[in-house]
């Protein structure tokens, strides 16, 4: 058994997913997880695949190039030697960070630096420039021992200096307002209050 993380990038065309997954199937591979997006006309896919019969990185790259010859694919293959027994990033609560305002070089870099300094891990990020307007929506895990106010005040300070507005809010608020499922608090929070006995 061999496992690989495979990423493929190319100018977007019809049929790339069909070709890439076909190449893996030819090698007897099975896709375990896959994420794909198209950004400004460029296609990117990242996936994890298992192969019951051991395969080399070169075999996988060659098979994908062969199947996707007409797409000029950029392929990166990384072997997963051992599954991670412990996560390398700290746990935390999921917050949504939003930054809106004037574009200037270095915004993502500086915000990411602030978060890294506080041990907050970015788990999803989408940023876009339209005209001169910059917008960023990010999901980040803020460690339990850090208050959102600490991150918020730092981002607000950075925002004031760069004509940006920054917001830090718990993801529950977005789930509650956009999903029809019942409002739920996390299990940890439900048990947080010391029940006040009748007085």
């Amino acid at each position, binding site marked *: 058994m061999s496992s690989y993380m495979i990423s493929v990038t190319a100018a977007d065309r019809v049929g790339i997913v069909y070709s890439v997954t076909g190449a893996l199937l030819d090698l007897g591979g099975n896709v375990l997880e896959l994420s794909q997006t198209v950004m400004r006309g460029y296609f990117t896919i990242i996936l994890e695949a298992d192969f019951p019969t051991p395969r080399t990185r070169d075999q996988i790259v060659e098979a994908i190039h062969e199947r996707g010859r007409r797409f000029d694919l950029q392929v990166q293959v990384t072997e997963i030697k051992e599954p991670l027994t412990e996560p390398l990033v700290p746990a935390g609560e999921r917050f*949504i960070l*939003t930054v809106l305002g004037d574009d200037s070089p270095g915004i993502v870099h500086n915000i990411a630096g602030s978060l890294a300094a506080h041990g907050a891990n970015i788990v*999803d990020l*989408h940023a*876009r420039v339209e005209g001169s307007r910059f*917008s960023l*929506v990010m*999901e980040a895990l803020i460690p339990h021992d850090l*208050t*959102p*106010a600490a991150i*918020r005040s730092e981002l607000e300070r950075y925002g004031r200096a760069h004509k940006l*507005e920054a*917001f*830090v*809010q*718990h*993801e*529950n*608020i*977005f*789930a*509650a*307002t*956009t999903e*029809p499922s019942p*409002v739920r*608090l996390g299990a940890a*929070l*439900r048990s*947080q*209050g*010391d*029940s*006040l006995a*009748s*007085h």
Partner: protein
Amino acid sequence: MHRTEDVLATLSMIRQHKLDVRTVTMGIDLAPCASPDVTVLCDRIRTRLIHYAGRLRAVCRDVESRYGIPIVNRRIAVSPIGRVAAGQKSEGLIAVARTLDEVAAEVEVDLVGGFTALVQKGWTDSERRLIAALPEVLSTTKRVCSSVNVGTTAAGINMDAVAALGHVLLDTAERTRDHDGFGCAKLVIFGNAPNDNPFMAGAFHGAGETDCVINIGVSGPGVVKAAVEDLVAHSPTKPTLGDIAEEIKSTAFRVTRVGELIGREVAARLGVAFGIVDLSLAPTPQVGDSVGEILQAMGVSRLGGPGSTAALALLNDAVKKGGSFASSSVGGLSGAFVAVSEDSALARAVEVGDLTLAKLEAMTAVCSVGLDMIAVPGDTDAETLSALIADEVAIGVINHKTTAVRVIPVPGKKAGERAVFGGLFGEMDILAIHAPGGSTEFVRHGGRIPAPLSSLRN
């Protein structure tokens, strides 16, 4: 990952359209505090309020920070003092009011409601004394709010209490003359008062409730107005009123969900029960936070003109529908408040003569409350004020809905002059009362208007 569009839509409700949690109201049952000794009674009330509400401010701050949503007011509603302090003389009742006022300041809540009497069918001596003490209480305390329920569909209308309240309003206004009779703004006279109403000034902790409960009042006139304006401006074809109702409904859903989330979290952190979300579109004097502006966005450019009542009915119904899908714990009043002095667009409509007392009364037949924050001439006689109350309560009693009166006779001022209450209470031109003094004998009959027949409804 949440969709960027969804995140930005929720964010714009908060940052651009003034969505906030208007009130976190802690309801506290004070029945266990009862004692014939007023000192013991007040001590028990103090201890119990601090026990439950001592951490309210800190918890609200934490939750506010976690979600980035402002919690504008923290309040307490207690069991109707008319029952808790039964048997007390006037001095005892006033001592209880002072205790409520002091503890509210101590735990840093801005208002405490529940200096209340429920007298729809009849009144006890204690409740009669409580009503008589209202001018003193409302003029000498800062945070204490009062309500009197004078009628229900099941019981009819207690006209003796209604008659007394006309005098109470005049006395209270006179004692707060230097503030345009502001004491009356802390008194709500109800028909069919809900048991779980967290909205001041009429809030109280009703019978059938638990020891302590967190209720939420969410207010989103700005959000609803923005949604209607956006729909009208950007629809490829002119939206129908059905389309507008759908838009209001889905907006009300999102607003209610915010309230439920915040309420559940505050309750969980305090270790007390979560009660209800009252989704009332309660305005503030700020431009952009007005129920009147929602009606204008729907196309009623002259508030008070024909069509105003229908538009308000559409709005009120759509808000209730959206809220009831969002939460199984919707209660209180949940609809649109037309608090005139607090609503810049309504106050302006009064100023230009479009909105009259008669039209407001008609509109209250389809909205959430009733004649709310309305200034009338200071020389209005007590019986005319009572008749005004009786009319409004009758609308509620006959139509199986809550109605209320919060009317302020402004000492020394006449119709057309300006009454200024300040802060969130706003300001407005004083409205004329049609044919004052014409119902004096009717009010003086007293007694009880019988409960209406529930079959043969029409």
